[in-house]
């Protein structure tokens, strides 16, 4: 016999599927962009000495704990008609949510990657250089050696992105279209809405899906991190 949850709640699957699609599109895009942005910064910060490095590192670490609603507010101001990026016309679009999640995830990915990259010994980088490696080769060796830490950084960034409510609610608006599919509604904002409207079964299901997604992405990233290293 099926569980009461499934029997009692005739879920609108196309609605739920569209929410999952928007959530994954927004968070995965934001994390990929954040990683591409953050890794070079972590490498440069890890291996060069310059004035203001300590300050910059402190700023990144502060950014790791930045409240998401504040980020949402700043991004909303930037994208609003009067804001500096008003001409992009992005308010209440998935792309606006990507921007705000990018801002949230980038410090996490940079900070954790920086710690991982800093853990790669100078000796190992010297060895790569001594064998004829160029600066790019040495950077690649460093990324490879720090792969577990970098995988952790990406996971932490993804976790921060997909699980936050505040900024996507502000810049995305939690909108569903007239056909009942999500435009800017993510798993988190949908859970928040469904729970508030008393549809606890739907909220619970969405919550379960969110947890499963996070687990899946974790498994994939950890697998990639391992696979990158155990080569023959």
């Amino acid at each position: 016999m099926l569980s009461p949850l499934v029997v009692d709640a005739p879920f609108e699957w196309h609605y739920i599927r569209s929410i999952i699609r928007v959530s994954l599109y927004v968070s995965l895009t934001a994390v990929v962009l954040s990683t591409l942005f953050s890794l070079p910064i972590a490498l440069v910060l890890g291996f060069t000495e310059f004035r203001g490095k300590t300050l910059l590192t402190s700023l990144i670490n502060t950014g790791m704990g930045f409240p998401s609603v504040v980020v949402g507010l700043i991004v909303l101001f930037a994208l609003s008609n009067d804001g500096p990026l008003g001409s992009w016309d992005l308010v209440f679009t998935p792309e606006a949510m990507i921007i705000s999640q990018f801002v949230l995830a980038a410090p996490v990915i940079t900070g954790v990657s920086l710690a991982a990259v800093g853990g790669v010994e100078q000796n190992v980088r010297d060895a790569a250089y001594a064998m004829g490696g160029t600066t790019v080769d040495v950077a690649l060796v460093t990324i490879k050696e720090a792969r577990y830490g970098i995988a952790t950084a990406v996971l932490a960034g993804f976790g921060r992105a997909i699980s936050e409510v505040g900024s996507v609610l502000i810049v995305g608006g939690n909108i569903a279209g007239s056909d009942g599919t999500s435009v800017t509604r993510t798993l988190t904002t949908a859970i928040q809405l469904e729970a508030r409207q008393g549809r606890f079964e739907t909220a619970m299901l969405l919550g379960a899906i969110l947890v499963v997604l996070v687990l899946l992405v974790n498994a994939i990233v950890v697998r990639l991190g391992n696979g990158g290293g155990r080569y023959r």
Partner: protein
Amino acid sequence: MTLEAIDVHHGYGNETVFDGVSLSVPPGEIVAIIGPSGVGKSTLLRLLALFDAPDQGSIAYDSEDVWELPDQRRLEHRRRIGMVFQEASLFDASVRRNVEYGLRVRQSWPDRIRHELSRLIGTANGTHSAIDAIETVGLGDRIDQDATSLSGGEAQRVAFARALAYEPDVLLLDEPTSDLDPRNTAEIEAAIREAKQRDIGVAIATHDMHQAKRIADSVAVLLETDIIEVGETEAIFETPTDDRTRKFIQGELIY
């Protein structure tokens, strides 16, 4: 091809490390650099390996002042030089991957990508010179082992094979056996002699006088900020011309 340091002056901040050091590493010759700890043996090898430019003076390869050359040409020269450090510093990968590294970075990017793809689908073959280098250090049976699982001595032998695999003209060895047991030391020394047979010029920094006597053709004595004496090994150990050399070799406190 001879690698040379010519009248090198170098320092860190206000500290002078070298005040006019000259040293030549000709093909097929083993040059031991001896001197007390902290005198700058590693710094000299790093300058020869083109990690940094000397403050003054020049590093010459094939009679060309390397730091006067365009980047690409300097990289080509740098790739004729191999270096082994006191610590093995292996990559977290298999022995084969470690030893092939020098060969990989010398490939063009399309070739590298092609190689990585064929490795992923399991059709990549080992490179002959890499396998040869691994066998030279006596680790032919460990080729597919994870490098991080090797003992200290075996790891250092892999580090040596790594430098040998791309067939350099010059090998720079920075105290390569100081942490090793006699057996692994003997393996490394055999590989150094093998390198000499292949006409590779070898510079080895060591504080082990017996090792210098065993393997070196010539010895350079680095003391304070200069090479105070350089000559054939036997001459340096039997009839040193500088009194400080005699004292250093006899283990007297002169610094």
